């Protein structure tokens, strides 16, 4: 009995010891796993802050869990992308990749030597971005799941980084556009300024005989300079490097700035400026508004007989008290027939040829600040070029 008891006890003790030893070994294995996972997580998040390091990180993940091979495949908008394939790697034709990716559940394929191939879906926020294939592993399911989660986060992080890099590239290209436009603007205006200075010197030294020629060249230079301003304004708006800044702008100030912009083209012309009573201030980007008015006024100066007065007139819009009209009126031949024909047949003014181009530029500059431009036949002959703009809200009295 004593012997039996002893035997039983020894068996129990040895089992207990064996269990304790197994537990200690398990604990040791867990500890090793945990350390490996910890190292892996540091590798993934601290060391891989450069785009493209994802493949290396996945390779480290496979080594950490003692895999004999495997790989990483990512699902994007296009075909699956193999980021890593080592040892007996992976094949995009493997149907398990697709089914694991679709189901978002891991799959296991046992091998004869007691190891197994594991397909781990990489999911963050319910969406499966890829599959990590671990071949010939003996690692615990939990450890594998942890590795899968870590790699999934690394994939997500990489996506985020590359998106951010893309955004930064976009921002940089905006900055590039801005500095390019600045350079173009400087490079075009510097020679024009130099030409104007040269013409002034010529006017001063060449005497009366050449005066008319010098004046003509000067006026053409002024026109060229306006064209460049127009095109640069368009380019800036298109490139998004110029955002219109509307502010309350009294019509009289806009008219004055317009007249100052065209001293040579308008020299010798009579200009009548009227602002009807109760005309509100415009809510407009002054630079764009002046650009448009100068363009319209230059056309008017060219259209009309030289001795007829040109008119700049501001009035409230009779059908909408929150808008106003700025008119440029001439006594020329009226709205060009090609512009009319184009409008009648539903074509854009751009398709109306040369006469339409200035109108297209004016219209798109006006649109950028909630305005419109229209050409109308003027009663009694001539054209009314009309810039219609929103009015500034009335300030406190």
């Amino acid at each position, binding site marked *: 009995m004593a012997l039996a008891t002893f035997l039983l006890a020894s068996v129990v003790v040895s089992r207990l010891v064996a269990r304790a030893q197994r537990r200690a070994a398990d604990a040791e294995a867990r500890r090793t796993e945990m350390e490996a996972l910890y190292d892996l997580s540091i590798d993934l998040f601290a060391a891989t802050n450069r785009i493209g390091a994802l493949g290396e990180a996945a390779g480290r993940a496979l080594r950490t869990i003692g895999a004999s091979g495997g790989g990483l495949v990512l699902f994007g908008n296009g075909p699956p992308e193999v980021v890593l394939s080592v040892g007996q790697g992976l094949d995009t034709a493997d149907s398990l990749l697709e089914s694991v990716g679709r189901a978002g559940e891991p799959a296991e394929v046992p091998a004869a030597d007691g190891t197994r191939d594991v397909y781990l879906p990489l999911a963050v926020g319910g969406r499966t971005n890829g599959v990590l294939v671990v071949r010939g592993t003996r690692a615990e399911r939990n450890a594998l799941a942890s590795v899968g989660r870590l790699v999934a986060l690394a994939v997500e992080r990489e996506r985020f980084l590359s998106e951010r890099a893309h955004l930064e590239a976009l921002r940089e290209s905006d900055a590039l556009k801005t500095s390019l436009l600045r350079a173009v*603007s*400087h490079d075009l*205006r*510097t*020679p*024009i*300024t*130099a030409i*104007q*200075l*040269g013409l*002034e*010197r010529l006017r*001063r030294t060449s005497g009366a005989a050449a005066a008319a020629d010098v004046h003509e060249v000067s006026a053409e*230079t002024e026109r060229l*300079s306006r064209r460049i*301003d127009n095109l*640069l*304004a368009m380019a*800036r708006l298109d490139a998004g490097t*110029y955002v219109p*800044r509307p*502010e*309350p*702008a*009294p*019509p*009289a*100030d806009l*008219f*004055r*700035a317009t007249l*100052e912009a065209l*001293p*040579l083209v308008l020299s010798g012309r009579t200009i009548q*400026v*009227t*602002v009807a009573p109760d005309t509100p*201030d415009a809510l407009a980007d*002054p*630079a764009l508004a*002046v650009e448009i008015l100068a363009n319209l006024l230059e056309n008017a100066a060219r259209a009309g007989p030289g001795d007829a007065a040109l008119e700049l007139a*501001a009035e409230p819009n009779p059908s909408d008290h929150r808008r106003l009209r700025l008119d440029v009126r001439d006594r020329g031949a009226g709205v060009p027939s090609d512009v009319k024909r184009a409008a009648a047949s539903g074509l854009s003014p751009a398709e109306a040829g040369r006469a339409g181009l200035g109108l297209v530029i004016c219209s798109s500059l006006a649109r950028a600040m909630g305005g419109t431009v229209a050409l109308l036949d003027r009663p009694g002959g001539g054209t009314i070029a009309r810039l219609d703009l929103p009015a500034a809200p009335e*300030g*406190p*009295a």
Partner: protein
Amino acid sequence: MTRALSTILVVDDDPSIRRGLAAELAAAGYETLEAVDGEEGARLAAEREPDLVLTDLAMPVADGFELIARLRRAGRTPILVLSVRGGDADKIRALDLGADDFVVKPFSVPELLARVRAQLRRHADESAAGVLAFPGLTLDRERRRVVVEGKEIRLTPTELAILELLAGHAGKPITIRQIIGRVWHGAPGTTPDAVRVHVGSLRKKIEPDPARPRYIVTEPWVGYRFVAEPI
């Protein structure tokens, strides 16, 4: 003006513009000095004490802003800036640093000469007495009276302060920030809109024809300029 012949320092890195400007200024009767950048400009300004400095903003070595800052530390020499169209932020920065006026490239020579004359004259009579007189408008700073076309006009204290500031610097663009600083003493919460409202009502009281402002004009984004010439 203290000298019979005023000296103007031209600072621009582009040789054809620099020489062209110097030639036109010389033809208009000024003595000229030329510098290729802000560095040389500051040195020449210190050595030769010009009556006015005409400077470009974008220059490779010591740009126009740096030159303005250095000149303002040294004194009150009038500074006229050459700016490009669309460069509003540059204009405001230059004015806030202490530049007196700007011309936009490409500019006409008569316009430039008019600005130069205005600055030289303004600088000469800046210490003027209490009464500012313009065609059709007088402002008696001591008695705080404004007379337009022979009729006394009643202005609110704010309107009067704005008029004093603008008319006291006739010909010089004054930025919104400068107005807030001088009239409201930089009181927090003073907005550009508040300035516009007060200037708007001031203009209604003193401008005889709203379609053709005679005294106060808007410099888009920058601020305002009193354009009438003192008598």
